[in-house]
């Protein structure tokens, strides 16, 4: 069998730093190679270098990457001239990128963006290219393609944009499709659809696919073979089932163990008779939205009701735009509710003033998603953690605060010396620990975790989740755990509420929700999660 793309000893250096080091792989016709790695592993750079699309300033590429043949007859994309590369880009190699909101030109119609490739490479006339574009839109599952040809990207949803991007990539029937994190910016249900679409198209057309992802679950769904990249080196390269079953490299094992998988873990049991700490009834929230063309109202939360018991974790799951973060905003005073009531220990939290309000801010604290922006870059770790202590006068003087800061750092398993560091000197996981320490400083009754681990690499994510679970046990904390990942929610929560378009569609205990989901949407969500075993394993059996 001859390889569509054959990469040998590929290296990329920028200045003195080595980004990719001696990576080799082959991709066969009709097969999918998955490239997996965490952020900074050089996975995108590897593929961009191998296909001659690298545009990082000052990048030097070494090694060879032959298109079409393993022998010298094929075109070496590393050594090829720009003209040679242009001839294969878009023709024999198609590309899909991560963010569908920026990868299509906002000022051109879909038709133009679909036809310009075939016109350049296949010498089609406008009319021929148009009917090809129509067929492409149809094949990627865009409804009413003939109406959509004249549309602009902003008129489509994110998932539809990614479908159009796939159509663009396939416009000239390429031998090789490069998919660089194509589902990372999408919701889990959309992700499942895109995975199915690409697999279907691959079966139909027999092209080779290189699929890059940070997510082993996704890679398991698409890949036949997998290359694990770690700090620019390929540490493991084998068929997907073997890698999943018997990982050889420690790093692969860490990735496999750390990834959230359904049904593996549930939280330590909590007292089922504990009193209700927080109670939300018929909560409605709407925002006015001002755009260039006028004002409109978005109904973010409609009639939401739920209870959180003391010492429990309530998981709030939903896709983007479901309103789950808006609930957190209402509880912390960042967002004004339209109607409804929320009580904490039986007392209404709305309409409080003065000291009562200050007290409330002490009782509910929150950890945000992005570890890079949730700490002020100009404040040291000690100043950040001490801020709530100062506001609520929780420690006596500078010395008292310092002592408490060090205690809190210990609590989140960070060395005391970190107190004098600045956020840019810390890694993402360390920053998130600092945020947790800051939220703990007020000894909150309820702690809101809003996608608090979603931006972390899986190996770091699992450590932070473990810390959160331990803290709950030791300090008897109550969590509102907001997430989009059902596997993580299962691992952390005692009760779970599923939100969709502002409404809570299902609210039940952890065990019941996963064993016997009542609502269709919950079932769709559960079905969309990549299973633990790779798909290739199922087809072999």
């Amino acid at each position, binding site marked *: 069998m001859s390889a569509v793309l054959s990469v040998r000893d590929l290296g990329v250096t*920028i200045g003195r*730093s080595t*980004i990719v080091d001696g990576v080799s792989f082959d991709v066969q016709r009709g097969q999918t190679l998955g490239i997996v790695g965490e*952020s*900074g*592993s*050089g*996975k*995108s*750079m590897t593929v961009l270098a191998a296909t001659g699309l690298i545009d*990082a300033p000052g990048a030097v590429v070494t090694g060879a990457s032959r298109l079409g043949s393993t022998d010298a007859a094929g075109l070496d994309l590393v050594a090829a001239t720009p003209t040679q590369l242009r001839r294969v880009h878009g023709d024999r190699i198609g590309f899909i990128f*991560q963010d569908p909101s920026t990868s299509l030109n906002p000022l051109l119609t879909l038709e133009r963006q679909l036809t310009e490739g075939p016109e350049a490479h296949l010498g089609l006339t406008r009319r021929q290219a148009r009917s090809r574009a129509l067929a492409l839109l149809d094949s990627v599952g865009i409804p009413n393609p003939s109406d959509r040809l004249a549309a602009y990207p902003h008129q489509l949803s994110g998932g539809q944009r990614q479908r159009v991007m796939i159509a663009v990539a396939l416009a000239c029937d390429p031998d090789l499709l490069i998919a*660089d*994190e194509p589902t990372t910016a999408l919701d889990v249900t959309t992700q499942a659809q895109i995975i199915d679409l690409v697999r279907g198209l691959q079966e139909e057309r027999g092209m080779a696919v290189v699929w890059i992802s940070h997510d082993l679950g996704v890679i398991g769904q698409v890949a036949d073979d997998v290359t694990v990249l770690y700090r620019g080196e390929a540490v493991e390269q084998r068929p997907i089932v073997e890698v999943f079953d018997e990982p050889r490299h420690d790093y692969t094992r860490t990735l496999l163990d750390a990834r959230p998988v359904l049904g593996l873990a549930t939280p330590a049991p909590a007292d089922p008779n504990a009193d209700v700490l927080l109670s939300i009834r018929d909560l409605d929230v709407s925002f006015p939205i001002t755009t260039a063309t006028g004002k409109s109202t978005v109904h973010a939360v409609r009639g939401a009701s739920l209870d959180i018991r003391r010492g429990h974790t309530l998981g709030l799951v939903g896709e983007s735009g479901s309103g789950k973060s808006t609930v957190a905003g209402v509880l*912390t*005073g*960042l967002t004004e509710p339209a109607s409804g009531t929320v009580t904490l220990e039986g007392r209404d939290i709305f309409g409080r003033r003065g000291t009562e*309000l*200050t007290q*409330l*801010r*002490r009782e*509910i*604290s*929150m950890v*945000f*998603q*992005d570890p*890079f*922006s*949730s*700490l*002020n*870059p*100009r*404040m040291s770790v000690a*100043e950040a953690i001490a*801020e*709530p202590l*100062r*506001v*609520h006068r929780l420690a006596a003087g500078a010395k008292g605060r310092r002592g408490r800061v060090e205690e809190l750092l210990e609590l989140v398993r960070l060395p005391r010396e970190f107190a004098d560091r*600045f956020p*840019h000197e810390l890694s993402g996981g360390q920053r998130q620990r600092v*945020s947790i320490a*800051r939220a703990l400083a*007020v000894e909150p009754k309820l702690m809101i975790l809003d996608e608090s681990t979603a931006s972390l690499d899986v190996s770091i994510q699992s450590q932070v989740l473990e810390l959160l679970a331990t803290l709950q046990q030791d300090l008897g904390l109550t969590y509102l755990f907001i997430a989009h990942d059902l596997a993580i929610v299962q691992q952390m929560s005692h009760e779970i509420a599923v939100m969709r378009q502002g409404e809570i569609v299902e609210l039940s205990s952890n065990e019941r929700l996963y064993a016997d989901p009542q609502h269709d949407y919950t079932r769709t969500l559960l079905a969309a999660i990549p299973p633990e075993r790779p798909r290739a394993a199922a087809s072999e059996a």
Partner: protein
Amino acid sequence: MTMSEKQAPAAATPPSRGSLIGLLLQNKVTLAGCIVLLIVAVVAIIGPLVAPYGVNATNVVNALQPPSAEHWFGTDDLGRDVFSRVLVATRVSLLVAVASVAFALVIGVVVGIVSGYTRGWLDTVLMRGVDVMFAFPVLLLAMAIVAILGPGLLTTMLAIGIVYTPIFARVTRGSTLSVAVEPFVQASRTMGTGSFFILRRHILPNITGPLIVQTSLSLAFAILSEAALSFLGLGVQPPQPSWGRMLFDAQGFLGMAWWMSIFPGAAIFITVLAFNLVGDGLRDVLDPRQRTILEARRRR
């Protein structure tokens, strides 16, 4: 992906004061700008002391002499030494620029922070006011103010200060808005931190970058505006020498005494250029992402 992550920390990292100056001076063009500014500042201080002739010492016999060993920049139509006048005028140009930009900075920052942090109707009113100010060309508005108050040094400072206030208000508001939605400010609000603490500890330190850049660029434009006003006879008044006024005086002698216009004009040009170069260098270091349309409103 790798690239963006490699670059992200560099952009997000606030450089310490020492490394910031180092970064700034690495750029040779910026370094040149800094050196020129240093020289201009020294001249502003010691200019009157080292000037070889009195600025208003007329000597009609010696009028319109080309540059020579005695008169490096020649003499004007009244026989005054152009070199001495250029030296002495430096102080007043810098003084007007610094005073007016300081005025604009203080008022603009207050308006911008109030506007950007409180939002609501007050924001709308203040920003409409700023829009109204932007509808007038800077020089025209300054001339109108001079027409109201009558020409003079104080009026010049006030007029230039007023016309550059809106840009500071807008830069401050824009930066405040973008910092105010940062999760670390949101986090502070959820903790119950008071507005004063948030403004002082979270917002102000994080908007200084754009403000420093704006200050440097505004100093450049303030010097140009002062020169233009003085050129029109509406700025600094004789007998106090000013670069703009010297150019006004040179108008009638363009063909016969080129030195009368070349040297004062070059003084303005070089000073403004230095401020602009330093401003650009500062932006590259402090505010790399700000390539906004806002900048289009900064001039004149």
